[in-house]
C-alpha cells in the first residue's frame, strides 16, 4: 500500500454508497417514469413484503426494472474483474475477454446453444466451454511462437485470429438459423443487450459469477506475483502453472456466465481495469474491489443511457463501443506509464 493512500475499506464503502445512489437514479429512468421517492418506497415495500396488488410503482420497480438493473451490475462487475485478472495473469495491460478471444468463443458457444434451442443453463455451459477453449488455444499459440516475437504482440494477434475464426462460426450459424425465430434472438444477442434479461437468466448467471469471484478474492494478494513473470514467481515459491490455470478458469467462468445472458458487451473488460489501476494502483487486493465497483457502475450507467437516451432501446453493445473507444483513447493518452 502506498504511504498516505486511504485504507481500502474506506473507499470501498464510499464506492458502494455511490453505486447505491446511481442504482436508485437509474431506476427512475424508463418507459414508466418513477420518482426517486417511488423507487425507494417500492424497494422498501418489496423488502418488507408489503407491496399490494395494483401497486404500479412496485410492480414496475420489482418486476421489470430490478432484474434489468441487477443484470447490468452483474455484467459490469464480472467483465471488469475478469479483465483485470487476465491482464495481471498474462502480464499484459492490453488483454481483455474480447481481445483474448474469450468473448467471441463464449459467443459462438452461446449461439450454438441458441441454434439448438437449449435452455439458459446450457447456453452458459456452452459459452464457458467455448470461451475456455478459445483462451487455451490463444495461450498455446502464443507460447508456441514465443521467443521469436514480442510475446505481447503474439498474444494479441493470436486472440485476433481466434476471435475471427469464432466470428466466422457465428456467421455460419446466423446464416443457417431459422429467420423467424432464432435469427432475431441471435442478432439481438450478438449486439449485446440487457433488454431481454429475465429473473430466470439472473438466477442462472449469478452463481457462476460468485464461484469465479471467490477464488479471486481469496487469492487476491497472490495474483500480484503472477505479474512478476514465470521465473520470479516460481522463485518466490508460487506454483505458477496451477495458479494460472485456476485464475484463467475463474475469469472465463465469469465472462461466459454473463455473456450468456447479455450477449457480447465489449470494452468493459479492457477499459475498466485501466481506470481502476489509474485510481488505486495495480496491487490486486485494491484493484479487484475497484474494478468490481467501477465495472458495475459503468455498465449500469451505459445501460440506463441505452434505455433512456432515445424513444427506442439502443443495444448496449453499440452504445458501449461509442463510449468505450474514446474513453480508451483518453486513458491511453493519460496513463501511458501504466502501459509499460
Amino acid at each position, binding site marked *: 500500500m502506498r504511504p498516505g493512500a486511504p485504507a481500502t475499506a474506506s473507499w470501498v464503502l464510499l464506492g458502494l454508497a455511490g453505486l447505491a445512489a446511481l442504482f436508485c437514479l437509474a431506476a427512475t429512468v424508463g418507459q414508466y417514469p418513477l420518482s426517486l421517492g417511488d423507487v425507494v418506497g417500492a424497494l422498501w415495500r418489496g423488502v418488507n413484503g408489503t407491496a399490494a396488488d395494483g401497486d404500479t410503482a412496485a410492480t414496475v420497480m420489482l418486476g421489470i426494472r430490478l432484474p434489468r438493473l441487477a443484470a447490468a451490475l452483474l455484467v459490469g462487475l464480472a467483465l471488469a474483474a475478469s479483465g483485470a485478472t487476465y491482464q*495481471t495473469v498474462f502480464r499484459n495491460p492490453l488483454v481483455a475477454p474480447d481481445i483474448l478471444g474469450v468473448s467471441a468463443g463464449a459467443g459462438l458457444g452461446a449461439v450454438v446453444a441458441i441454434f439448438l434451442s437449449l435452455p439458459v443453463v446450457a447456453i452458459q455451459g456452452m459459452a464457458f466451454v467455448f470461451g475456455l477453449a478459445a483462451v487455451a488455444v490463444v495461450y498455446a499459440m502464443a507460447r508456441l511462437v514465443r521467443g521469436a516475437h514480442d510475446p505481447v504482440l503474439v498474444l494479441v494477434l493470436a486472440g485476433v485470429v481466434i476471435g475471427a475464426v469464432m466470428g466466422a462460426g457465428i456467421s455460419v450459424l446466423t446464416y443457417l438459423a431459422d429467420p423467424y425465430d432464432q435469427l432475431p434472438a441471435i442478432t439481438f444477442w450478438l449486439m449485446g443487450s440487457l433488454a431481454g434479461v429475465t429473473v430466470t437468466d439472473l438466477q442462472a448467471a449469478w452463481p457462476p459469477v460468485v464461484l469465479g469471484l471467490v477464488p479471486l478474492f481469496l*487469492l487476491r494478494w*497472490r495474483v*500480484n506475483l503472477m505479474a*512478476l513473470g514465470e*521465473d520470479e514467481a*516460481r*522463485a518466490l*515459491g*508460487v506454483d505458477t502453472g496451477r495458479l494460472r490455470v485456476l485464475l484463467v478458469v475463474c475469469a472465463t467462468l465469469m465472462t461466459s456466465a454473463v455473456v450468456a445472458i447479455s450477449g457480447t458487451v465489449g470494452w468493459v473488460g479492457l477499459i475498466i481495469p485501466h481506470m481502476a489501476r489509474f485510481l488505486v494502483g495495480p496491487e490486486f487486493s485494491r484493484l479487484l474491489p475497484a474494478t468490481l465497483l467501477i465495472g458495475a457502475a459503468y455498465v449500469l450507467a451505459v445501460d440506463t443511457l441505452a434505455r433512456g437516451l432515445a424513444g427506442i432501446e439502443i443495444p448496449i453493445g453499440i452504445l458501449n463501443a461509442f463510449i468505450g473507444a474514446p474513453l480508451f483513447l483518453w486513458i491511453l493518452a493519460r496513463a501511458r506509464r501504466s502501459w509499460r
Partner: protein
Amino acid sequence: MSARPGTPALAAEGLGFGYPGQAVGRGLDLAIEAETVTMLLGPNGCGKTTLFRTLLGLLSPQAGRVLLRGRPLDQLPRRDVARDLAYVPQAAEGTFPFPVLDVVVMGRAPHLGLFESPGARDRARAEAALDAVGLADLAGRPFTAISGGQRQLVLVARALAQEAPILVMDEPTANLDYGNQFRVLERARGLASAGRTVVVSSHNPDHAFRFADRAVLMRGGAVAAAGAPAQVLDAAALSAAYGIPIGLRDVDLGGGRVGRVCVPGVGPA
C-alpha cells in the same frame, strides 16, 4: 535446515543443463560454500544464465542433480526452496507500476499461506530490507519510474525480505552505471559478511578480484577453473576465456592493501 558441517550450501553434481532439444552444458560439478561470495565469469553464451536457472530449480536438469544443503532440489517443495534460495534477476522495468514497497513485500510470499495477505510484520520487514539497501525514501514510488540501478537494489531488497540464506544474482551489474555496479556488489559482499551465501555472475573480472571469495570461470557450459580469484583468474586463463590479450596489474589501494585489476589489450606484466 540442519546440514552436516562442510556440506556446501548449493552444489551441482554431474549436472547437464539446457533447454529441450538443446544441451548447454554437461558434467558440471560445482560446490558453493556457505557465507561466501562466489562469482561466475565467462564469455557470452557460456551458459551462466541457464546454469543459474537450473540451480534455482526453474529449469529441470538434463542429467545429474542440484543439491540444496545436501538435499536434492527437485524433491523439495517449491515453497521450501524459496525460503532457502532467493533469486535476484536482472532488473526489468516491469509491466505494472507497483509501488516499490509492494514489490519488496512480494518477497514475503514463501512465508505466507496460500490465501494470506502480507500483514504489518511483513510490511515492517520489507521496509527494513528497503532501508538496508538505502532506498527507504523510494517506498511509495512506482517501480516502473525509478532508475535501473534503483530497480536492481529494490530486487536485492526483495531477496532480503524473502529471508533466504542463499542469494543467486544473475548479472546484477549488467545494465548499471559504474557507481551502481559498485553499490550493488558492495551490498552483496556485505550480505556474505553478515552470514548469507551469494552466487553472482558478472562480465567484469575486476569484480571477482574486488568482491568475491571464489571465482568460477566457465567456458562452453563447463567449469574451466574454480578457486580463489587470484589463483584461478590468471592472465592466461582470462585471455583464453575472452579471446583477447588480458594483462593483470596490482595496484596500491592505500593502507598497505593491494588490489588486482585487469587491463584488456595488453600482455602479461
